[in-house]
């Protein structure tokens, strides 16, 4: 089994991101999955992107243009 690399972009672990940790994941090309060195998350690129969408649940006003700041 060869060593892992960074993958095409520096995808961060979505599970760690949820607890305010920015951890770049590494890519296991044999298993075709990203994995986190710190926690137990593993996932395909598709799964990472899906979880990254889920992360945004807390930004309820993310897409709203706000004009009243009082």
């Amino acid at each position, binding site marked *: 089994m060869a060593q892992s690399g960074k993958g095409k972009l520096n995808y961060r672990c979505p599970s760690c*991101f949820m607890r305010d940790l920015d951890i770049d994941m590494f890519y296991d090309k044999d298993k075709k999955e990203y994995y986190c060195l710190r926690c137990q998350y593993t996932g395909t690129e598709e799964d990472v992107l899906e979880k990254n969408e889920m992360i945004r649940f807390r*930004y309820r006003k*993310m897409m709203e243009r*706000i004009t009243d*700041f*009082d």
Partner: protein
Amino acid sequence: MENTFVVNVIHRPEMVPEYAEKVTGQGKAEDIGRKALLTESLDIFKFQQKTAHDNGLKCTIQMTYASLFNEEAVQLAKDDHEKYGDEIALTLLGLPCKEFREKYKTKDFCIWMFSMEDKKNIVDDVFGKFYECFGFYPESTGSYYMDAELTNYIKEKYPSIKCAVATCWEEGPKAYHTTNNSWYTLFDGGPWNPWIPSKQNTHAPAANEAEDSGIVAIPHLSRDLLACYDGNGSNFGTHPQNVLRGMIYDTKTWEYPYLYNLIDQYRHLAKYNNGYSYNMMFVGPGWLNKMGRWEQPYELLKKSYEDGMRYYGELKKEGKLIDLTMAEFADFYRANKTYTEPECALWKDILYGSNKQLFWYVDPFMRACVNMDQGGAIVDLRPYVAKLKWEVGIGTPHVQDASYPFLIQEKYRAGYFTHYAGEGTVRSAKICCGAEEVDLCLCRTHATFSQEGKNRVLTLDPVDIEFAEVSVKLQTKVIFPEGESRIQISREILEVSDPAAEISINEYMVACYGTTEYPEDMTSIKLSVGDGADAKKIEYAYKCREAAVEGAKVAEAIIPPVQTKVTLTTDADDATSYVKEGYAFSPMFTLGMTKKIRKGEVINTWLNLEKAN
């Protein structure tokens, strides 16, 4: 003044961007002299300059040490100064390069972490090299943090310096945590907007000319005063790639209205600061990496920078923004601000939809945060009045920790809520009726701001406290008298459903001291209540003792490690003041006072801060 929104756009040709070598160099042995890295870095700088200029914005070019060895970078700065009026300044960021490493034999790169001797040598080296390239000394400098000793040295040796990037707001233990404890920028507790640092401590603004360090400090980025207080600072600032790092954008449309909301909320702060508001954007080239960052391709990184500049440019065209260089801004600031004029920010949640509201206040004597979602409780308090001498860097007691200590910090030392036992730091009040007790921390409300003479006044919407048999309507005002180093809290009892009911108020402050999440040694703290012969004293020994004096108007704590005396005082004749020592599982102290209340009454208390040597 008329509403004036001032913006500083700053770029630095960082030949070896902080992130680039680690992120894009993965799988390669370290080589900070790689030609590809140097070329890319300069390309990014050129892109940033062009984008700002295309939008009609003037920049401050902060030359790095590494860039002073690059003829092209030096020439670019000269050309843009000539053509666009950009200021050529000098940053103490971007030290790493082959020349620096060979000379100083270290991989350290944060100027505040070096020994004082090295700081002086590096400053002289960098300023000397700058002079060699340009024939003059710069007017502006900066780093992520500039300790007072460093600033004092620079100002003495290079008096042309009038402006510096001097801290990054709430970049401390939270940033450290976010980076899996690998990014040692520990400097919480400073101002979020420009200030004149004191000679004694960078975070603490000067109270007068004698304390004036001689520079105007600006923050590194304009940060979200609610999101950064709670979460990772590097996700929520006027730094487009920070917003991408926080995943605060639509992945399909590549839109990020939050960035514009953040800029606009900063513009809105003019309302609380006599018409003045401020913003800065300072994106290091590592954030515009051609290989992409934070899950996103270069195209989105680039677009976000272009959009940020475009928005500033549009505001300028509409006459709503003034772009100044750092040196110009320093002149503007000194012409329009006094030493004791506070910086105020009534800040609304613009991201999470919580409707929460915080009020931030900073002056030469304190920084305080009032949380309207907790009934106007004070949830963060830094006693600047002590002007704590806090040297940092190798050879000092604080090699990395440059934070200004807190007395209250609800995130690091709990606030109202604790797990099963003990208390957390907060300044609040409890309303009591028989065996029932309600803390105002549980009364969510909002506030309006007003300036009444020298007082900045937060008037909170009234709240209802409902006991089993009786209800109370109460209104809180939090008043910051300019230049007095104290906070007045005024509670008016608007209604009591049963005038015969015995109701009392317990005004209290639970505090400790520190700069991180972890407890400090409390044994030097001295507590006392009352005056003269009736006074009672407790020397802190974790013994859970309490002392109270009827009719006393003052409860006091002296905290030697932060050279601060804090008192809670009242003008009421019928109050009982008290102090409480903590215990090992609750390493806090409490100052408080209780008194009976009735309809129509106004209860005034003051939290006073003094320097205690």
